[in-house]
């Protein structure tokens, strides 16, 4: 499923709606180039989960934990691990928890990822720096269900 957005705010709105729908133990993969708006998307998701704290880039610490919302949010960014993989990070603990895991640059740790997930790809527009296509691909029935609900919600 593809959604076109024309601003940061629109991206955040979609993410917020998704944040209201996600369920415990879900894994969202967030892909896109540098500056495509991955952290922006994560911020919207956090709002949807009822997290009020500022969601900052997790590039430096690799994982940031937010435990105040409807569900815990584990925001990961494995950008720094390109070409190295994530076998030694102990990410399983997050993936197997009751929280929601969001992984930026997930292609760098493909081997560590569970089979089922929702992949969110942010595609920049060549001509318009504000425009994005948000591509949503579900792997596993629970994620397909979430996407159907998102379509309804998004009208």
């Amino acid at each position, binding site marked *: 499923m593809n959604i076109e957005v024309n601003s940061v705010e629109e991206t955040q709105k979609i993410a917020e709606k998704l944040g209201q729908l996600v369920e415990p133990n879900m894994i969202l993969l967030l892909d896109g180039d540098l500056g495509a708006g991955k952290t922006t998307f994560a911020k919207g998701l956090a709002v949807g989960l009822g997290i009020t704290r500022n969601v900052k880039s997790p590039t430096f610490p690799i994982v940031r934990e937010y435990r105040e919302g409807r569900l815990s949010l584990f925001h990961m960014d494995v950008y720094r*691990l390109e*070409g*190295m*993989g*994530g*076998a*030694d990070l*102990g990410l*399983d603990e997050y993936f197997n928890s009751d929280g929601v895991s969001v992984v930026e640059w997930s292609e760098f740790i493909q*081997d560590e990822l569970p089979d089922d997930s929702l992949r969110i790809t942010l595609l920049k527009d060549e001509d318009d720096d504000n425009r994005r296509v948000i591509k949503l691909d579900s792997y596993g029935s629970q994620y397909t269900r979430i996407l159907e609900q998102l379509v309804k919600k998004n009208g």
Partner: protein
Amino acid sequence: MKILAIDTSNIPLSVAVLEDKTLLATMTTNIKKNHSITLMPAIADVMKLAGVKPAELDRIIVAQGPGSFTGLRIGVATAKTLAFALDCELVGVSSLELLAAGISDDKTDIVPLFDARRNHVFSGLYRNSNELINELPDQHRDLVAWLTELKERNQSQIFVGTDVDLFKPQIIDILGEQAYFPAPFLNVPQAFILGLIGKDKEPVEQETFIPNYLRLTQAESQWLETHSDKDHNTYVEKI
């Protein structure tokens, strides 16, 4: 000789204080609680119960790996710094050997084993006739390949460790009646046994002592695929 023995290689944590071959006090947990919270208070408590002051310790023995990287580092960093600060002997013992030493059956191969994720294990092969002998070194292996190799030995084999349950179907599938499983209490490592094994080993040099991870970091091994390990500057420099 007053001995402190520590194992934090995996989920179980075990600490013991010995006077030569005699156990004075011990504590073992098998809960999912961070070892960094539990270990130092456990050492303090066990030593207090044993009536041994830190300065009286002659030797510190630590399970050196393989196991969880973080768990190993907590145990080794603690043991190594304690030994350094108290100027006493330091000894490292294989975490797998520790489990094997609990099995006294001399008729069978002993295969201690830890989960290393993605159907890989840390394992080795031991035999215990009068003394414990390591027949196949501790290694990081694909489980199926390892079991297939073991099968060819045509020996009865006893699998020991808290993770064995996880792999039981595969073990039985490949080894059939060749495979045995010990009484459950033998699956949990005991620092008392660690002390008994380590008391007769040669002390190591403290400064260079590190865990036996038995596996390179993924970053390192991928880097080595395209680079030579020689011709580089020192990785760590004191400035």
